[in-house]
């Protein structure tokens, strides 16, 4: 190969990694930059969104505290990602179906799961997973990837039935390396499912940095392989997150098939409370991201508009703290789960073998 030929080939290869659109509306200095889109949120909606975000941050803080006090089991906190979770969800309808991961219990609460259930989930109690009538979602998925193929299937069911409903699902940057990630977006594309896929790129899959997950410059561009649109959005910009998700919902509802959204965010805390992030990332990096925190820019932006102040924020914090305390107490009062009941849940009608085991455990539980 001549140098000229190689240069030509090299140029061709570079072109194969197409750039994806990047959307930012509110930058780190709380300036409206409108890179690609403008915010359509009214002042009332902005306040409602801000309340959600403060609520989410407080829930995280209270859960971490409860974790340290031993009042819940192991916790995967999502501090730093609340905008990525709650501003995207803010754009969806209550009847849309949410497939969360283990780090998305907070958006599941926002979608209708009682706080008490969340506490029970962290404690490992089956009652957590019994969602009240009208809450459209599944319990948090622990294995990574399954929810993507399932969301493709449910989005297809909605499309077949002509429903005004969308399947929406989260995954992390680590999860986007899973085979099911591709199978999910590919199936959804082929069957034009009413599905919105969100990759919350929080920069680490447990301890492994984003650039060790994939050579792809963006995770959004993985959509191209499935022939569906992919878009990257500033995950610390609630306005952009809302706008992109709202339009993605409209796009899929208009019969265009699914959309993949990558949110560029950061997990401030550890992977779980038993993880030590100082082993794999620097304080300097964390500090950089802390400066990008959506709370800073939202406080400033809404403050400048005169629609948000410290007292309002404190009121949400107080309410949320109370809500959490009530949920922890309510969870304390939840009857202990019984193995005999768990056995009843394996099949619709217990098999003869399980029926015998139920009797055995009922006796054990009496003693």
């Amino acid at each position, binding site marked *: 190969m001549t140098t000229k030929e190689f240069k030509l080939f090299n140029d061709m290869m570079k072109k194969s990694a197409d750039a994806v659109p990047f959307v930012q509306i509110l930058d780190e200095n709380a300036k409206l930059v409108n890179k690609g889109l403008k915010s359509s949120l009214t002042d009332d909606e902005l306040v409602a969104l801000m309340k959600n975000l403060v609520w989410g941050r407080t829930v995280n803080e209270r859960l971490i505290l409860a974790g340290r006090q031993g009042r819940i089991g192991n916790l995967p906190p999502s501090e730093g990602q609340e905008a990525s979770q709650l501003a995207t969800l803010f754009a969806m309808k209550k009847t849309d179906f949410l497939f969360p991961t283990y780090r998305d219990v907070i958006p599941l609460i926002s979608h209708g799961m009682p706080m008490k259930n969340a506490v029970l989930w962290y404690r490992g109690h089956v009652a957590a997973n*019994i969602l009240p009538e009208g809450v459209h979602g599944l319990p948090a998925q622990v294995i990574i990837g399954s929810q993507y*193929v399932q969301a493709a299937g449910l989005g*297809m*069911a909605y499309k077949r039935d002509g429903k005004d409903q969308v399947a929406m699902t989260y995954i992390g940057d680590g999860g986007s390396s899973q085979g*099911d990630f591709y199978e999910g977006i590919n199936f959804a594309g082929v069957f034009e499912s009413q599905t919105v896929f969100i990759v919350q790129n929080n920069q680490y899959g447990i301890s492994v940095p984003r650039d060790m997950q994939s050579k792809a410059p963006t995770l959004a561009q993985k959509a191209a392989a499935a022939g569906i649109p992919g878009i990257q959005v500033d995950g610390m910009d609630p306005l952009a997150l809302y706008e992109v998700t709202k339009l993605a919902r409209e796009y899929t509802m208009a019969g265009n098939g699914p959309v993949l959204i990558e949110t560029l965010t950061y997990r401030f805390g550890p992977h779980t409370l038993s993880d030590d992030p100082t082993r794999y990332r620097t304080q300097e990096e964390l500090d950089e991201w802390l400066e990008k925190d959506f709370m800073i820019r939202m406080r400033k932006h809404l403050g400048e508009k005169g629609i948000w102040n410290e007292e309002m924020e404190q009121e949400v914090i107080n309410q949320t703290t109370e809500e959490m305390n009530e949920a922890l107490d309510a969870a304390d009062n939840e009857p202990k789960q019984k193995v005999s009941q768990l056995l009843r*849940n*394996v099949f*619709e009608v217990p098999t003869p073998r399980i029926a015998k085991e139920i009797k055995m455990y009922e006796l054990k539980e009496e003693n």
Partner: protein
Amino acid sequence: MAIKNMVQAINEALTQEMERDERILVFGEDVGTNGGVFRVTDGMSDKLGIDRVFDTPLAESGIMGMAMGLALGGYRPVPEIQFSGFTMEAIDGLLGQLARHRYRMGGTEGVPVTVRSTFGGGVGTPELHSDNLEGLFSQSPGIRIVIPSGPYDAKGLLTASIRNNDPVYFLEHLKLYRSIKEEVPEESYEIPLDKAHVVQEGTDITIVTYGAMVHESKKAIESLEKDGISIELIDLRTVAPFDIDTILASVKKTGRVVVVQEAQRLTGVGNQIMAEIAEGAMYELEASIGRVAAPDSHFPFGQAESVWLPNAKTIEEQVRNTMAE
């Protein structure tokens, strides 16, 4: 009553169920226009619409996940995994998700998905086509594994599986597809799940088996009966969870038992059956529990299948040994 093979019986069951309930969908690789790699779904997309009997991309995990999502949306999916070995690509979807769902949801909702797949030796398939994975999958709670031994059973068991509200892994033995022909009623009927079939009654010894080995056992029985040995033959039909009560009742009557499976000694459901018999009928046994199984290698390359697979001769030999104890 018309004589049908298993392919026709399964096609009839699927068609009739889909005509009865419009929420049933059949999908998988090549099942639509092509009618399936073994023509099991032949003509169904013409009759029921290509939107209800349709092809998917070549990705088993995607098929399983889509089935789960459709079930969450109120459908009753009957996906096809072309060959059992390919199910390995979708184990999370099958065992991690479908089988777990009702339990996970505190018993409040199930996922009525019947996954059809093929398996079984004797037809010289390439690797990963014939693997007997029923034992491996039978160790998961929350899912039934159903294996018909002939056309009549296939139609009734598949109908019952589709109507069941829990997931079913329905395994069709490749060798039985066209080799066994039986009278199969035109009308729809169910054969109850979780119940074994006493194919013939006997007093001296019990053979417990399933799938193609039912037919090998029948051949062995023909020869053994000439020597005056009276054999009770049990076809499990549902291999997980299996019907231990029928097995124990028979073993207590005959006092001797041989468990026969095509799968390797390591896998299959034989181990579990033997353990249950040892627990439940030890003192009624007049001989040790006999076992017929394939050796503990991976499924053999086609040219070695005839030696690797258990057959009527191995069954006959084991029965004679057990009788002699």
